[in-house]
């Protein structure tokens, strides 16, 4: 591929590309993000290629492996264009039928379509499915049409046109002002205005400056940055290059978790292709601007998501944060001004440049503009990645897009903001999502994890869980974080084990206060959030654990027992056979009894007991009824049904 030497050549290349592409040609796109890989999209891809070959359709049908489509619950997903027929949960054995029926005969296969649970209607087109219909996917939407390993796809959808616009007709200051005007706030969690951060670096003294992509996405239950980076890496690179131009940087870094091998692979391919095209490297698009990007893999430390820790890790040292008397945009990587933004923030930049700040600010609330991608997971019907305009109420995300709670269970809380965030109860569901709105409610935006919890989730255990996570990830540099959190975890663990005592809550509050005031970095300062927000909204659960030694959600292992109701047991042998610890005695027509000594409380009996009997029970805060005497265990059936 020859280098592209000017914005005009880029435009000509794009026109030529589009003229060669027939919009009416059948194109099978298959979601090949990491989540779909886990549900078997590799095998499906192999099967599609084989079938196309077999039917001699190589010339008529294009097959494109794209990044994540977002609807991970129903993966792997196939979309057949131009008709936009959408099939879900595809297995390799479905592929022959898809090729012979849909591709050749243009017939829709009913059973592979999405069924709307509300109306029981089959939906053919992706854009009519409630999960997609209620979103606003300005950043994430391109994922479905781009093969991340092929720069042509990105160029075809006007990729790098924002970079061309910037390099050919905007001064760095104009770029900066546009981003400031758009009020783009950091999507990684802090919500710091990107324009202000850039300006600080631009005005800082020194010739060498750096721009950095933070792709060290560590929040458990959040994977939107990965999906963006592995699904549309060029959009991040384009944003980064524009940022570099604005602040006067010639070297950029992408710090990505090594646990995301596909993202590492795709971003490396993207850099290589962009360099070949002259969109990275020396004299980009003939403008005289030079910029190179290097990829660093993170070796697994949550704290490296913190800006100063990440920069220390980039220098090849242990990633410990440092106090921010001087911000890293002035003194950062190797002591130079360094702008660090999250993947999603960078990916928003080309959109702002192309469409203008006024377009961008039409989405969102007064203080939070644009959209936000959330990773909607946990006890939710439609697990996946959703992008909504800021200001969308939580209730819409959870019910309209997410489809509510599965299994007829009751909603209890939504946890946002990752380990440092908080849990919001039902009463706050009409809260519009935005940086300040969520903070005010005692949680935070964070990077966009949104974990839904139902009535079976114990809120004390959730606080303990996050504290355990943060204790393990604390780098150990400052005392309030290292020691304070350890004590908090100890107390919370005791409470979940039924060893809580009066005064524990007050002590936890005291330790929280100290961490907020005195910890060095955001990890420590925000570490009490999970505890404080659950205490604020679910205090009664703490009290039940401490005073009554009862877990209201029937979740804390030490506080519950499994018990088979002798009046309901039909001696079906299900639990008896499946119990991994052989703790259940009984037999044919012998009522089953759990030996409490042997029981490991794994819950298998509760899960396998047929719902029509519902004999296996979880109990908490009350003693287990004594087993009925052996002579009373025989079931006498009046009529033999089977």
């Amino acid at each position: 591929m020859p280098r592209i030497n000017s914005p005009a050549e880029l435009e000509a290349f794009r026109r030529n590309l589009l003229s060669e592409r027939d919009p009416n040609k059948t194109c099978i796109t298959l979601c090949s993000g990491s989540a779909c890989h886990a549900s078997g999209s590799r095998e499906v891809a192999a099967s599609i290629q084989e079938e196309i070959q077999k039917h001699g359709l190589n010339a008529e049908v294009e097959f494109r492996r794209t990044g994540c489509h977002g609807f991970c619950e129903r993966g792997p997903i196939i979309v057949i264009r131009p008709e936009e027929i959408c099939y879900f949960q595809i297995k390799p054995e479905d592929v022959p039928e898809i090729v012979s029926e849909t591709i050749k005969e243009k017939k829709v296969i009913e059973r592979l379509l999405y069924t709307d649970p509300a109306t029981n209607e089959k939906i053919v087109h992706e854009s009519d499915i409630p999960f997609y219909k209620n979103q606003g996917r300005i950043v994430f939407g391109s994922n479905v049409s781009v093969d991340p390993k092929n720069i042509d796809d990105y160029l075809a959808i006007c990729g790098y046109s924002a970079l061309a616009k910037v390099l050919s007709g905007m001064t760095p200051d104009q770029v900066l002002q546009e981003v400031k005007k758009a009020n783009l706030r950091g999507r990684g969690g802090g919500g710091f205005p990107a324009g202000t951060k850039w300006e600080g670096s631009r005005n800082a003294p020194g010739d060498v400056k750096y721009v950095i992509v933070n792709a060290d996405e560590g929040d458990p239950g959040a994977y939107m940055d990965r999906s963006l980076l592995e699904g549309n890496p060029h959009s991040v690179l384009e944003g980064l290059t524009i940022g570099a131009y604005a602040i006067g940087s010639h070297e950029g870094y992408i710090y990505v978790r090594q646990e995301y091998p596909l993202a590492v692979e795709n971003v490396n391919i993207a850099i290589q292709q962009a360099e070949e095209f002259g969109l990275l490297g020396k004299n980009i698009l003939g403008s005289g601007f030079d910029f190179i990007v290097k990829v660093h893999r993170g070796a697994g430390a949550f704290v490296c998501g913190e800006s100063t820790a990440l920069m220390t890790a980039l220098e090849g040292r242990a990633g410990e944060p440092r106090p921010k008397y001087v911000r890293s945009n002035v003194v950062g990587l190797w002591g130079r001004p360094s702008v660090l933004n999250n993947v999603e923030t960078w990916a928003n930049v080309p959109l702002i440049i192309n469409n203008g700040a006024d377009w961008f600010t039409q989405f969102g609330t007064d203080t939070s503009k644009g959209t936000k991608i959330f990773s909607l997971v946990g006890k939710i019907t439609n697990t996946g990645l959703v992008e909504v305009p800021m200001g969308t109420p939580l209730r819409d995300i959870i019910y309209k897009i997410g489809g509510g709670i599965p299994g007829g269970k009751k909603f209890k809380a939504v946890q946002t903001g990752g380990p440092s965030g908080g849990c919001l109860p039902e009463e706050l569901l009409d809260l519009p999502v935005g940086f300040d709105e969520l903070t005010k409610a005692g949680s935070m935006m964070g990077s966009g994890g949104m974990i839904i919890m139902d009535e079976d989730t114990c809120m004390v255990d959730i606080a303990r869980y996050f504290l355990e996570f943060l204790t393990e990830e604390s780098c150990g540099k400052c005392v309030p974080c290292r020691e304070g959190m350890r004590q908090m975890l100890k107390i919370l663990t005791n409470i979940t084990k039924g060893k809580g005592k009066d005064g524990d809550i007050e002590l936890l509050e005291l330790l929280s206060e100290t961490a907020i005031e005195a910890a060095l970095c955001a990890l420590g300062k925000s570490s009490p959030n999970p505890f404080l927000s659950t205490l604020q909204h679910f205090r009664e659960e703490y009290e039940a654990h401490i005073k009554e030694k009862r877990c209201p959600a029937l979740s804390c292992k030490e506080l519950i027992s499994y018990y088979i109701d002798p009046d309901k047991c039909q001696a079906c042998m299900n639990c008896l056979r499946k119990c991994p610890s052989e703790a259940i005695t009984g037999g044919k027509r012998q009522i089953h009894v759990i030996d409490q000594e042997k029981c490991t409380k794994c819950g298998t009996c509760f899960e396998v007991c047929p719902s029509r009997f519902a004999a296996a029970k979880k109990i908490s805060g009350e003693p287990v009824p004594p087993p009925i005497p052996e002579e009373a265990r025989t079931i006498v059936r009046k009529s033999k049904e089977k």
Partner: protein
Amino acid sequence: MDKDIIDQIIDKHNCEPSYLIQVLLDIQAENNWLPREALERVAERLQVPMTRIQHIATFYKAFSLVPKGRHQIHICVGTACHVRGASRVLDTVQGLTGIEPGETDLDLKFSLETVNCLGCCALGPVVDIDGKTHGKMAPAKTADVLKNYD
């Protein structure tokens, strides 16, 4: 571990001390753990003190200073998997293998680790064994899956 392979890895990163973590990651990927002689070679060629290498090797989770088993079990304990019962799956695996997270059994059959999020939350609770993802796990199913490895 073969000295030539270590040298190749170091050369790939231009013997640059700031690439120390990247070098160690490649050695870890190649060898599954970081033997002492490999670290000594890295210290010598990159001209970084051994103390710093050990600081890094113990600070980051990706590194292991002891040999690993034939099969790597990664149990996702991310929040989504946690609320769906990952701790019960972890209990079962611990019970069946007799090892705790971070440990390897004496036969070098299994190494057990917990991970914070594998990013396939729709399948939770998730267990990854040697790179293969097992989704929607429950204690009984876990026992069935583990039987397939020897």
